[in-house]
């Protein structure tokens, strides 16, 4: 790469890193104030996420909601992607569009829709409503990754299996499922990480009854600042990097994001 190219990449890296540097620094401040650069260093805020009962509760809520919601997203996306790949059924595209719609449209739409729905259904504020609403909201992520996964299956591989005596069920269990499993996992990972950090749908559905981490951070920003919010953000970024790092370590990250695999293509 030319030096101009290198400078471009370096500038971009700096731009992307700046906010993270700031919150990391803010989280180290000894006193409970917003100052940057930090005056006096203390790691207590990183610990308080786990020690302070309010923050710990919010953390638990976030993690549990994210895990359950991601599971629901995957449970909807996989059969749908399978059906679209296996069957010729033009009307099924409609279901696909509905699956992708919540994510493409401005999030406030889904949030407001969820609000009116749960209010009408009489369940407004119940903690499980956000699990379902998040589950629906994030369907498009595993749907995209799993569809990508199905698209990589060369049908000749299945034909070869058939000539060797495998019926549909065996083919699914022994050939198809192992091939799309990494895509299911990465879809789950995306949905999980995004749910952890999602604000508006959570706020509009259960914002008044329980706090997730993003809700708590926003409240802290408005009403009672504490460096804990910065610390927890750094932790969440760390979690995201770790999760995607694991996906990259055990899988082919570029391929999962749409590139040809090594040696394939054209």
């Amino acid at each position, binding site marked *: 790469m030319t030096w101009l190219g290198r400078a471009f990449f370096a500038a971009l890296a700096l731009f992307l890193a700046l906010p993270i540097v700031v919150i990391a620094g803010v989280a180290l401040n000894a006193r409970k104030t917003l100052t940057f650069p930090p005056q006096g260093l203390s790691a207590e805020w990183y610990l308080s996420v786990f020690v302070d009962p309010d923050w710990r509760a919010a953390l638990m809520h976030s993690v549990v909601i994210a895990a359950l919601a991601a599971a629901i997203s995957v449970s909807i996306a996989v059969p749908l992607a399978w059906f679209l790949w296996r*069957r010729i059924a033009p009307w099924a595209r409609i279901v696909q569009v509905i699956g992708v719609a919540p994510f493409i449209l401005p999030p406030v739409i889904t949030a407001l*829709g969820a609000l009116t729905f749960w209010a009408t259904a009489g369940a407004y504020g119940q903690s499980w409503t956000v699990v379902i609403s998040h589950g629906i909201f994030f369907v498009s992520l595993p749907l995209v990754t799993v569809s990508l996964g199905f698209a990589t299956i060369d049908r000749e591989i299945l034909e070869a299996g058939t000539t060797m005596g495998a019926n549909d069920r065996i083919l699914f269990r022994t050939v198809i499922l192992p091939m799309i499993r990494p895509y299911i996992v990465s879809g789950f990972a995306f949905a999980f990480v995004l749910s952890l950090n999602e604000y508006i749908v959570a706020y509009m559905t259960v914002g008044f009854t329980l706090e997730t981490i993003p809700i708590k951070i926003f409240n802290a920003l408005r009403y009672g600042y504490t460096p804990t919010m910065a610390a927890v953000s750094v932790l969440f970024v760390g979690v995201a990097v770790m999760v995607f790092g694991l996906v990259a370590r055990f899988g082919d990250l570029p391929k999962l994001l749409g590139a040809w695999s090594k040696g394939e293509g054209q």
Partner: protein
Amino acid sequence: MRRSRPEKWSDYLPIAYPAAMLTAFFVVPFGIMVAVSFFERVQGGFYQPAFTLSNYARFLSVFFGEVLVFSLALAGAVSAICLIVGVPFTYRLTRLARRYQVAWLIVLLGVLSLSEVIIGFAWSTLLSRTAGLSNLFVAIGLMESPQAWSPGLGAVLTGLVYQAFPYTVLVLYPSFSRLNPALMEAARTLGASPLRGFLTVVLPAVRRTLVATFIIVFIFALGAYLLPQILGRPRHWTLSVLVTDQAIYQSNMPFAAAMAVFLVLASLLLVALAQLADRKEPAL
């Protein structure tokens, strides 16, 4: 296992559960929201069933017209900036050696998962007068006195671009990584400088992706809710902010619903325009 039409009723099973879930928890809520947009507001409470167009009529006021124009212009600016920076970046990224690509992808995915709240908080700090970049510039002599760049339009733009950028790269990524590298090489052997080759060969080859990405990022920016509040003044608030404001704080659900429906229509119109523009291109 060839692609075939569903025959037995059991063939329809795989799609039954997804269809049911999506209908119950997206289509129905959406429908209710549309219905509510025609309802009448009840003072102090939520709303009562009715049929009135008064909520939509409020759109015709100058105030909401201004907000609409601002929201669209802001979304357009964010999308344009993200593309101008993101397109050459993604192209170069896909030409990098594999392990650098993976490293960058992980970084981008990490930034993508940053909560909107935190992005707002971090940038409001970076652009503040007491603890931000301007202090740094003063310290190294680039500026005379520190300035508060947040809240302000520039701050909102910066925050939104920061949030939308990883998204832009990931949407562009498949097309650029699948691009035949021989195209650019052929252009070079035919006498085009790298820049000229990029503009006359690479960009036209991914034309459709560029349009699609612009639309996707535009709609994404249109949905910005927190950043305009954290980094901007009330005159920088977008339609999405107003929707929640009306829904929660003003307790005017029908009006909020009407604005939401309008947002949806605007998004759908954009997608339709993109399809139309696509079709007008001569078939290749």
